[in-house]
């Protein structure tokens, strides 16, 4: 087991949040229940969860790295590989599919010049397929930073990408 002291953590978590986690883990009976909370916090801070993020989570919660990895690799919204600044989760489930998700998928790949699972060269966008996002009423939809966008058309996609690009370069 790695200890927190032996790790550089500032790139992974805000130090106040880290302190809160350590305190909370010490107070509750089953610190394990915080695994997803800690992983999500690291991801929010760092963009994705690198190996030392898994090790830090383990150290905070008194677990071994593989005990955290077992969980981290189960969930598809925890990234164990680098992703771009904006991860675009495009819904490929049935309702979005009925409303033209395939077309949006093709358009996104063409516009960003990447395939699903890839990140744009400027590090801004990662494109991932996702199961139903829970906003089937506004199909076809994408989720970016836990916000839904839909119903999408190729034009709306262009606008969205443009806005995000601007946000990304600001």
């Amino acid at each position, binding site marked *: 087991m790695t200890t927190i002291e032996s790790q550089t953590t500032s790139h992974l978590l805000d130090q106040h949040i880290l302190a809160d986690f350590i305190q909370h883990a010490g107070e509750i009976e089953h610190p394990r229940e915080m695994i997803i909370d800690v992983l999500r916090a690291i991801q929010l801070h760092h963009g994705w969860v690198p*190996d030392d993020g*898994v090790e830090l989570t383990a150290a905070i919660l008194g677990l*071994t*790295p*593989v*005990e955290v*990895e*077992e969980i981290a*690799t*189960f969930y598809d919204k925890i990234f164990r590989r680098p992703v771009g600044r904006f991860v675009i989760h495009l819904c490929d489930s049935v309702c979005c599919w009925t409303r033209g998700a395939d077309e949006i998928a093709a358009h996104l790949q063409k516009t960003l010049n990447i395939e699903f699972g890839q990140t744009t060269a400027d590090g801004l966008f990662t494109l991932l397929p996702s199961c139903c996002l829970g906003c089937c009423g506004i199909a076809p939809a994408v989720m970016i930073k836990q916000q839904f966008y839909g119903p999408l058309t190729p034009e709306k996609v262009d606008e969205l990408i443009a806005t995000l690009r601007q946000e990304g370069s600001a």
Partner: protein
Amino acid sequence: MLTLTIDNQTISIPAGKTILEAAEALGIMVPHFCYHKELGAVGSCRMCAVTVHTGPMPGVKMACLIAVEDGMVVTTGDETVATFRERVGEWLMLNHPHDCPVCDEGGECQLQEMTISSGHGIRRYQGGKGTYTNQDLGPFIAQEMNRCIQCYRCARTYKDYCGGRDFGVMGSRNRVFFGRFKDGMLESDFSGNLVDLCPTGVFTDRTFRFKSRAWDLEQADSVCPQCGVGCATIPGGRLRELQRVRSGDNPLVNTTFICDRGRFGSGYANHPERPRQARQEDQVVSVPAALTALETQIRATVKQHGPEAVLLVGSDRASLETNWLLQRTAKHFGCRVPVLNAHRQRHQTAQMAAFDLSERLASLQDIRSSDLVLVCGVDPLAEAPLLALALRQAVRKGGRVVLYDPRPVELPCDADRVAVSPLALQELLADGGVEGRHLRDLLSQAKNPMIVAGADLLGLAGLQNIQKWAEKTSNKERPCLVYPVLAGPNSFGTALLSLPEQDDLLTRLASGKVKMLVCVDADPLLEAPEGERFAAALTRLEQLVVLDYLPTSLSRHANLFIPTCPPVEDSGTFINNEGRLRRFQRVLKPGLSLARTAPGEHPPREFSLDTPGSDPQPAVLLLQRLIGQEQPLTEVHRQLVLEQPRLAALVSLKAGEAGVRVAPAVARPHSLDPLPEQPAQTLELVVTPARYGGDLFSRYAPKLEPRKRPPCFYLHPDELQAHGLKDGDAAVVETDFGSFTLPVRSQPDMALGCVLVENSEAFPQLIPGAGLGYCVISAGGANE
């Protein structure tokens, strides 16, 4: 008892059993994967489907999950379930590479067997297959994930049963992966069980890779000689090389698990330095010539100097038969009784187990179902690894483990650990005041209390107190049982054979009357304390004779040496910690291995009528020849039982069986000596066997190298500070047995007031079990 019908056959079976178990009892094999009798049922593979025709919810059910009910009617071969199981076979094979011809599991693959028994034969799926990147899991275990069928047995073995925390299940859907967080040697001391428990060729014995096909192996039921637990093993060899060890199945002892020391520690049998020829002074001689010389010398010496002049020494790693034949030999030549264990204190504690505790011995099976185990003075992972697993199972079932020991004992389970010095532990057991009373109350109130007692650390006095505690906390409903942890595979047997009033080796040597010493499968230099006194006594001998199979320094110094066989090349009996007679059977004949050690290198090429290196003979046979009474083992057993009625079970004992307990003896009366005072200004000296290299066998097991640790003195950080030392410093420790220089290490989990050192090949000078010892530590010496 419940009565049910399976495939038109009726069976009565106790409640709580499953359909699968009931079917098995009827001889009906329901294919299954994820179920394993020790790991239990989890219902994931769905292979064991049967049809239940009765009850409120009839239909297809998993046989491993459903408890039998009275009047139940089950079919295992009807169309519905037969087809379903065939589909399960097909699904499991979707991603499976068809590499049976080159797969390391080939020949003992449960997947092959179950796929065939499921009826699946022809691949219909033509879609893509998943592939994985394998991990490097270290020198013991090879991983080939593409062969995985996701039965989850490995994780259940490693994590759940064995308590390992560096292995797990990753990913999901049809992409689950079983391995470590990162490449690296598996940390659990039970990692090898992955090999036995994985039903496919994912986890295989890396040390055995590319050596043999399973069906080419010579295998036999054996007993692990590497500690007193006496696990059932099935060693396998070929071309005169012992190539692997896997677990046997002894439900009362180790079930289907063994430790890595036993599995990967068998290199002594083929050690390149193993002495394979008889030698007289520096001349190689034939074994018959050596025996003749031995006989002549014994007769001459006895004749010239009297019965005291020839001393025969046995050991706790020699079989029951060997030790008994030593006694016969002594009688035959008119010598005094042999010393069966050169380590006096160990012999005495083993006699406590063999006589005084024999009515109340716990088995590992008892421990696995205990609700309270008090562990006193034992480091299970070093002294009796499978005991650690048994404790874990007790805890998994809701039991509690309370542990008193000076060492930083690691366990694969939760335990209430109290670090106490050996003297404090003796005091606790002798009276114990409030704490002692509290512990005895706990034992009295428990449903199934057990005490595990470390003979090395507690010594005779400690065990006598344990006996009292057990007596006091037993009641009419249930006894409080004791599991003594002894040092050798046959400590118990050796102790049982010898008379209690026997002198110890050093006293006999000190008398100056001994002219000739004959050590059989024994090396008192390495296996008994006071090595220096023993070494000095050796110089006064006229003849040192050694019969052994290990390349110890004693065998090199012998005037006359005759090679013997390790247990894998011999048949015989050990009696384990719990007083259970365990028979082992010969796996291989002795001989130099034909295995090539490097590409292009030739096997030994000598032209002789005999197999090269085949001179070693079992010690029993050598002794029989020496006294001119060659008899089959059965006859040896018959005579042995006449002398030792407690061993009546010997006659019908078979290898591969669970083994039978020796008949209990009546406890002897004891008088307890008061505890000695600790000399002023000293620290207590704790000598413990290393986990790897502590037992003599694993010192000659090259495969275990990666697990061995360099020797050092461990002290509590406060103690280090008090002595002006810091972690890594070199220190001199003066003991009754000499003064030694080693680095010191800080160990916060150990008791205060102690210096702890591991006995291993790198530090063989101090031997565990020598009783309470004291030392003085000071900075100094060169830092290594």
